Structure formats: structure tokens, C-alpha cells
């Protein structure tokens, strides 16, 4: 379990003060995958680096691993009433794995030695270290690369080595700082699958930072959306996707969904989005209990409302379907109003994008 309360961190730069963390609080359930999304400069990287005290927050409380309530005052961490020594901080970090955007492997060490790096702090014998490295290489499916140097590996393989290294000392928490941002789509997918797999197999808690909603969608259970050092929205991935509140969240979601194309079509005033007086261009979101053609057919028949579909999409988030349709609704004013009411009664979230009705 990770719990963070009222975390604050300000960077004093020449150009002025930057509030990287502005009173951030959240908690992460053990064994879950927790995503933090935001644009660069939102403070998400600072947040994850604060979790293992690579960066010490100015104020706030952190509970992580066996450390219940590390308190920060004026940038000094105290634990159980005493100032945390550098040694204690190192000790704490050994229980938390971390992977990075640029892998950060030692270029002059073989895959074996890179993975063995943290094991030298665990008091294992040489034979035990060799055995553990073999185990880890099997886990990340890279056994044949044991003698390779990082310069001989692809980006995806480097990240696998970095993951093996981060997991070497059996941490129960893995922090991932933009771990897939430097990878091509194939490698990204395979790394995300690996992380999801490790989460299931080892029950390891994963905190992942990203600027890509697709990453969140692929593996996170819960997500926090960050903007200007604050968490503006937090919830399960399904809830955030089906009913985003903050404007920035909507932006992120439309970037990850095929339905997001509509914004560009409207902006370009495409012929697809031209509506006649009396018509409505609307986005209909079907949540898990109401996905299906059924409702639309019923609406068309019962209320004589026509739907001209422009974009449609169904995605599965953790096995739950989330459907979306964007189309032009047409019909008489009364029918249109009744049709939309019918949709809402059936839990179809209706968002009017362009309104040609005159009232």
C-alpha cells in the first residue's frame, strides 16, 4: 500500500518558482496498477521520484513499503520522529524497483552485470546471484542475451533488462517513469504486456507515469490525471474513460480514442459534420450495461429519430465494453427531444457537439 498526503514540492528556478507538486494526496492499493497521466511539466515525474525519495518533497507524508508515515518538513524527511539518514534512504530505495524512459543501463556492463547490480546489496553469494539473474532473465524472456552489452540490444530488450534489474531484489513496488515513451509501438506493447504479466504473476504494485492515454488504457486499474502540480481527477480507468470530468481528461481520452477524430473534423468543418437546421450532432457513450445496437434501433422505431453514424467504436477496458457513437440525429423537434430523453433514461450519455435546433 502506498499512501501520499499533502505532498508539496516547489522548485526555485532563476525564472521563478515552479510548484511541481501542489498539495497532492492519493492512495494506491497493494497489487494494483496505478497510472498517473499528464503533459510534460505537470509534475508527474517529480511525484514518482518523490515516492522513493530520489526527490525529497518540501512538505507532506508518504507511506510506502514498510515505512509508515515518512514526514517531510522543509525538505527534510523524518521517520519515527528521527531525521532519515542517507543510509536509511538507500535501504528504503532497495525495496522499491524503478524503470526509466531511457533505460539507464550501465553501457560498460553485460546484461548479467547490470541485473546483478542491485543484488550485490542483498548479501547473496556469487552463486546465488548467478542463479537469481538466470531466473530474472527467464522472467523477461532474454536468457540468450546474458553476455550481451546494452549497445547490442534493441530498445525493447534494454527495457526488459532494466525491468529485470529493477525486480532483482524482490521489491513489492515498481515505479515506471515513462518506461515506454522511447519505444516503438511493437516494443511498447510487449513491455506493457510484460508489466501486466508481472503484476498478475508476482502481485507487484506498479505506479506508472505516462503522457499516453493508450498506456493507461492498456494496463492501469486506476488513474490520476495531473495538471500544474495538482491531481485534477482520479478514479478507475473505466469511470474516467466513460465519464471524464476535467477538460484535460477529455482531451487525453479523445487523443486515445478513434472518436477523438471528430474534434478535428468539426474544426476543419468537414462535410461529414455539416448539419441542417433541426438536426443535432451528438456523441453517445454506451457504458457497460447498455452496449448494443438495440437501444439505437428502439429509438429509431419508437421515436422516429434517424441516426446517421459518422464514427463508432467499442473498446474493452478490463473486459468491460465501452461503446461510443458519433452521429447526426434528425427528426421532428418533439421526437428528437423524446429520443434523447430515451437515450439518457437508458444510461447512454449524450453529449451534443453541434446543435441545429431552434428553440
Amino acid at each position, binding site marked *: 500500500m502506498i499512501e501520499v498526503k499533502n505532498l508539496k514540492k516547489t522548485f526555485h528556478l532563476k525564472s521563478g518558482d515552479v510548484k511541481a507538486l501542489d498539495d497532492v494526496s492519493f492512495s494506491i492499493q497493494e497489487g494494483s496498477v496505478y497510472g498517473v497521466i499528464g503533459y510534460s511539466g505537470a509534475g508527474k515525474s517529480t511525484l514518482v521520484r518523490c515516492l522513493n525519495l530520489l526527490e525529497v518533497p518540501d512538505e507532506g507524508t508518504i507511506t510506502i513499503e514498510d515505512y509508515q508515515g515518512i514526514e517531510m518538513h522543509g525538505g527534510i524527511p523524518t521517520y519515527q520522529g528521527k531525521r532519515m539518514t542517507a543510509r536509511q534512504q538507500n535501504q528504503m530505495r532497495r525495496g522499491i524497483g524503478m524503470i526509466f524512459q531511457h533505460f539507464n543501463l550501465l553501457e560498460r556492463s553485460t546484461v548479467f552485470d547490470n541485473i546483478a547490480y542491485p543484488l550485490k*546489496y542483498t548479501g547473496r553469494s556469487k552463486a546465488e546471484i548467478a542463479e537469481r539473474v538466470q531466473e530474472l532473465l527467464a522472467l523477461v524472456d532474454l536468457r540468450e542475451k546474458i553476455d550481451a552489452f546494452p549497445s547490442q540490444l534493441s530498445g525493447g530488450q534494454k527495457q526488459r533488462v532494466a525491468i529485470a534489474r529493477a525486480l532483482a531484489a524482490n521489491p513489492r513496488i515498481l515505479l515506471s517513469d515513462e518506461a515506454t515513451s522511447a519505444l516503438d509501438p511493437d516494443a511498447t506493447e510487449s513491455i506493457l504486456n510484460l508489466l501486466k504479466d508481472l503484476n498478475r504473476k508476482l502481485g507487484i504494485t506498479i505506479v506508472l507515469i505516462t503522457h499516453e492515454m493508450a498506456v493507461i488504457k492498456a494496463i492501469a486499474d486506476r488513474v490520476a490525471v495531473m495538471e500544474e502540480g495538482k491531481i485534477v481527477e482520479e478514479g478507475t480507468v473505466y469511470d474516467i474513460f466513460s465519464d471524464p470530468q476535467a477538460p484535460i481528461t477529455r482531451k487525453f481520452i479523445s487523443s486515445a480514442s478513434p472518436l477523438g477524430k471528430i474534434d478535428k473534423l468539426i474544426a476543419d468543418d468537414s462535410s461529414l459534420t455539416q448539419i441542417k437546421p433541426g438536426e443535432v450532432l451528438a456523441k453517445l457513450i454506451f457504458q457497460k450495461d447498455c452496449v448494443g445496437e438495440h437501444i439505437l434501433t428502439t429509438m429509431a422505431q419508437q421515436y422516429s429519430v434517424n441516426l446517421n453514424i459518422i464514427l463508432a467504436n467499442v473498446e474493452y477496458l478490463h473486459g468491460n465494453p465501452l461503446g461510443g457513437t458519433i452521429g447526426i440525429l434528425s427528426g421532428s423537434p418533439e421526437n428528437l427531444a423524446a429520443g434523447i430523453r430515451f437515450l439518457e433514461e437508458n444510461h447512454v450519455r449524450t453529449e451534443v457537439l453541434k446543435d441545429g435546433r431552434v428553440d
Partner: protein
Amino acid sequence: MAEWIKTVAPYLYTYRAKFFAACSATFQMFYKAGLIAFAIGLFFGVILVITKKGGIRQNVLVYQITNLVINVFRSIPFIILLIFLIPLTRAVVGTAINVKGAILPLVFGTVPFYTRQVEVALSGVEEGKIEAARSMGSGTFGLIFRVYLHEALPDLIRVTTVTAISLIGLTTMAGAVGAGGIGSFAINYGQNQNHSDIVNVCVIVLLAVTFVLQSVGNALAKRTTNRSLFQIRRGNGGKTI
């Protein structure tokens, strides 16, 4: 062989004993001052990198003082430093002349330059590697030995080569305090007595030494880039050896 040398470099042959003594003096100055300067320069180079702003053990006072001392000594020409340090040399080693008296000024002349070079080499280690090592629980010593010095090795070899070559240059000036060496042999027996063959041979010897140093340095730097110098192979059909 001796006959051949007699014809191409007659004066060198006449003064051959002096020549070998000069080579030996240069060699002694080179390795004694070199080893000491290597240790001290490496130490202060590491100090500069870890105490600088944003370093792993940031310490403005230590950084500024080290920085200032280095700048002061770097700005003094070696021939003047040699004279200027005479009282100190005498106090430390008991004499300010001969090879013994030249070591200390040579160290003073080399360390500031080498420290700077080491600082540059270590600064080339990516911040990310330091951060990753910190996240795995490495302390100051772990970061210095397992990351900084380990990853910067090819660059350290390059700057050490450059420094070694410049140190040979400095030893030629040590004749000013009676330390002998190839430099003073070339001036006293070659230039001053108008024996051009002696000057030529001295130049060839210095060229050869420089060439060998540079070649060995380049080869080692290349051999250690992106890999370790000696590798233990672990993969043997998945078995450990």
C-alpha cells in the same frame, strides 16, 4: 649496429652514457610524478564532480576552494612554477635539485590539468545512470566506483593519455633544477655544443614515446567503449560457468 650509429650520430655515440642517463632520468620523473599526479588528480576530479551544484554530495565551499586552487596553479607557466616551488620542495623532500627535486613541481604542474580533464570525463556520465543507481540504493561510494569511474573509463583513459603526453613535455623543463633528462641533454650536449645529431635523436625518442603512449591509449579507450575490458562469459547454453 654500433658502427651504424657512429656514422649517423657520431656525437650521440660519444655521449651515449649521458644519453642513457638522461633517458633514465626522464623515465623516473615521468612515472614517479605520473603515478602521484594520477592518484591526486583522480581524487580531486571526483571531488569536483560530486560537490558541484546538483552533484551527489553538493558542497559549495569544497567545490569553490578546489576550483580556485586549480585555476591558480593552472595559470602559472611550468618553468616559473618550478622556481617558485623551490622552498616548498626543499621543505618536503629535503632537496630542490636532481630528479628528486623535480617530482614535486611536476606533480603541481600536472594535477590541476589532470583534475580538470577527469572532471570533464566524469561529467560525461549520464545523469540517468546516477539516478538509476540511486534508485537501487547505491550510496556515495557505490555511485563513484560502480557508476562514475566504471562508466567513464574510456574517457578517463583518453584524458590520462593526453595528460601523460603533456607530462613528458614538462619533464624536459626539469633540467632547470638540474634534474637532467632528455630535455636538458638535448640543450646542453646538442644545441649548446652544436651537435645537431643529438637534438635530432632526442626529438625522435620523444616522438616515439608520444606515439606509443597515444596508440596504447587509443586502443584501450576503444576496447573499453560500451564494454568491459575483461569479460567473464556467463552464457553457455543457459548454464553458468
